[in-house]
């Protein structure tokens, strides 16, 4: 009996402690939030199609981009790959029956939903206008919007993150199948392990910061108010101490996904496995020390800025190791352009552009010119959308047969991958140019000379939206009419492919055998033909 057939009642889902069912619960919830956040983005791009602020008022516009940011960061990106793919795959990949704390896992989902509903409630009550960064003193003293309620939601969601991270760390330490040493772990597990450490160590700082802002709003006095001896800059330090590592919470799991897909569709061992694992740890640790690069124009000391700038450049080294190693994995491989591979290659290209523009922003003198312009907006969308979302889709397509037991139409999936890639670049590349020309972010109106590029961007967003809607159709169709996938449709390595699709409730019928080596692909063995 597979896990999907183990009970059909609502209760058998909402009360399940099976990590695979909880992954599905997360998938449904984050998809819903993705489209809510996407709707806000659509309205933003519609407003910006013309220079005049004619579609929504400036006040509504502020609430729109805040809603977009808050929902996409905390309710979509942070939980996307870890809570959906990680939840489903980590126990399978290490040969375990479940996570170390199955009930805690279900609690994480309920906390996530509770936080999400609180944030949505704030949105429907009238929204927040501070931007997702909640900078003080605006958020504590002046904003007439639902700051405290939204932050309460973020606070609750944070505990969901912490418990998920804790669960993954303990699981990887204690539940690996005998013989599966650390350097036989798939890089996806390494990536999730490093991500979990960030979740556990960075999120509590966000929680306490949120608490301080709420206390200050309700109490009228707190540590961020200069009139009472506090310092608004302290907020920025605390906020970015979480929110910069949060970027790596979003992008490390994406790197893990891509590291599974590229070797599979190049039919080659991953190049430099150990370096890939060390690079993950290096990114996770240096990532904790670079938050000050968000504050180059805040008035922090020049000495601090220089150190933060240098450290930010250092993160580029392990990141570049990863990009080069994916590329080297392709070299002399038998490359197959199945849909998951297209998404994964899209990730590599877009992440590289996002990463290189990150170096421009890490340079002190350039950042002073580019800060708070569309260059920054474009940069982080290349990392978060071009990187994380692309990789989430790559993983979704790669493991869809495992999760559902069905194959989707590879042709349609490839069309969607190309649409998303083109639509994304159409939307965001013009924003780099706008940024260099000096268009500031977070305004609902702009001078007419910026209109051509903005129109490009808005038109691209239409293509992008279409690309995101397509998978709903063909993946949905596959559930009804897709052909049975079999245990291992892509002839991939990894323990998750040794069990039937969909996996049985307890994951494995027999205790799985640890493989002799990780990514033991044979370039001469051919890959099965894709569906249609």
């Amino acid at each position: 009996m597979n896990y999907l057939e183990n009970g059909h009642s609502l209760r058998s889902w909402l009360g399940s402690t099976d990590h695979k069912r909880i992954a599905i619960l997360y998938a449904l919830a984050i998809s819903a939030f993705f489209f809510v956040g996407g709707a806000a983005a659509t309205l933003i791009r519609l407003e910006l199609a013309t220079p005049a602020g004619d579609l929504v008022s400036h006040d509504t516009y502020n609430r729109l981009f805040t809603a977009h940011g808050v929902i996409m960061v905390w309710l979509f990106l942070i939980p996307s790959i870890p809570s959906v793919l990680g939840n489903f795959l980590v126990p399978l990949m290490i040969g375990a029956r479940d996570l170390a704390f199955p009930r805690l896992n279900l609690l994480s989902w309920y906390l996530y939903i509770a936080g999400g509903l609180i944030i949505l409630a704030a949105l429907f009550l009238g929204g927040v206008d501070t931007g997702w960064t909640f900078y003080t003193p605006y958020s504590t003293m002046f904003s007439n919007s639902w700051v405290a309620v939204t932050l309460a939601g973020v606070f609750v969601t944070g505990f969901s993150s912490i418990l998920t991270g804790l669960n993954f760390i303990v699981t990887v330490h204690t539940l690996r199948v005998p013989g599966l040493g650390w350097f036989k772990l798939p890089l996806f597990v390494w990536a999730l392990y490093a991500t979990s450490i960030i979740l556990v160590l960075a999120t509590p700082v966000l929680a306490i910061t949120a608490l301080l802002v709420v206390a200050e709003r309700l109490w009228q006095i707190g540590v961020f108010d200069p009139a009472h001896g506090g310092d608004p800059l302290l907020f920025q330090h605390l906020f970015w101490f979480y929110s910069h590592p949060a970027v790596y919470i979003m992008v490390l799991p994406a790197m893990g996904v891509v590291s599974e897909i590229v070797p599979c569709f190049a039919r080659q061992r991953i190049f430099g496995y150990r370096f890939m694992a060390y690079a993950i740890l290096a990114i996770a640790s240096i990532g904790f020390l670079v938050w000050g690069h968000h504050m180059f124009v805040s008035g922090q000391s020049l000495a601090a800025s220089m150190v933060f700038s240098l450290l930010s450049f250092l993160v580029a080294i392990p990141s570049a190791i990863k990009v080069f190693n994916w590329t080297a994995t392709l070299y002399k491989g038998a490359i197959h352009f199945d849909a998951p591979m297209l998404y994964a290659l899209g990730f590599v290209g877009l992440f590289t552009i996002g990463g290189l523009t990150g170096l421009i922003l890490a340079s002190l003198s350039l950042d002073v010119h580019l800060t708070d312009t569309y260059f920054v907006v474009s940069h982080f969308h290349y990392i978060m959308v071009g990187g994380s979302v692309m990789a989430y889709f790559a993983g979704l397509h790669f493991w869809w047969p495992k999760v559902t037991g069905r194959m989707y139409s590879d042709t349609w999936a490839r069309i969607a991958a190309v649409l998303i890639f083109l639509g994304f670049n159409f939307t965001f590349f013009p924003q780099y140019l706008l940024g260099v020309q000096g268009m500031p972010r977070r305004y609902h109106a702009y001078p007419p000379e910026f209109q051509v590029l903005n129109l490009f961007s808005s038109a691209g967003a239409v293509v992008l939206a279409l690309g995101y809607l397509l998978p709903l159709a063909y993946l949905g169709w596959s559930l009804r009419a897709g052909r049975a996938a079999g245990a291992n449709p892509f002839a991939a390595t990894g323990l998750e492919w040794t069990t039937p699709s969909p996996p049985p409730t307890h994951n494995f019928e027999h205790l799985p055998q640890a493989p002799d080596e990780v990514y033991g692909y044979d370039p001469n063995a051919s890959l099965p033909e894709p569906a249609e």
Partner: protein
Amino acid sequence: MSASLPLERHREAVAAARTASLGMWIFLGSELLFFGGLLMAYLYARTHWPQGFGQASARTHVVLGTLNTGLLLTSSALVALAVACQGPTGRGRWVPWLLGAGAALGTAFLAIKGWEYRSEWREGLFPGPGFALKAVAGAELFFVLYFLLTGLHSVHLLVGVALLVAFGRGTRKKRAWAAPRRVEAAALYWHFVDVVWIFLYPLLYLVNRHG
């Protein structure tokens, strides 16, 4: 099912023995950063207003604070003894009583803390309108941090007391869920709450009191 299952059960039993305390250690790492954010704010504010903080901390009730420190340290010792009495030592019957005594001392701490809050409220030391030390720059910030830090600590202590009471009852009635590894995890949490106080006590009551 297959022959490998007993082996799998064994492996999971071994793993389970480690998961509870490992999970707690990681949770406490997270808690450390939670308090760390506030301590960072304290560090910043103290370096900016050394005199204001000194004068404000002179108004704290150092006798009550010291008494509470003693209570909490003693409770930690009792809880550590409870963990040591578990398993094949033959002293298992002491476990519920030691846990109960730890919980009682924790409750006494909370009662004294409540009393302390009440007198501070009456002395006008609660931040906001009517704050007694308005003229001293930084003093109000000290008390904001004082109430936030000790308040959050008390919330943690309350959770700890609930845990000790639950495990005290559980071990007395020999419930299966009150397994030694879980008692050990609860004890770790209790020690953490104690350690946080060991930092708060000097930072809030002692540093530069007469400066």
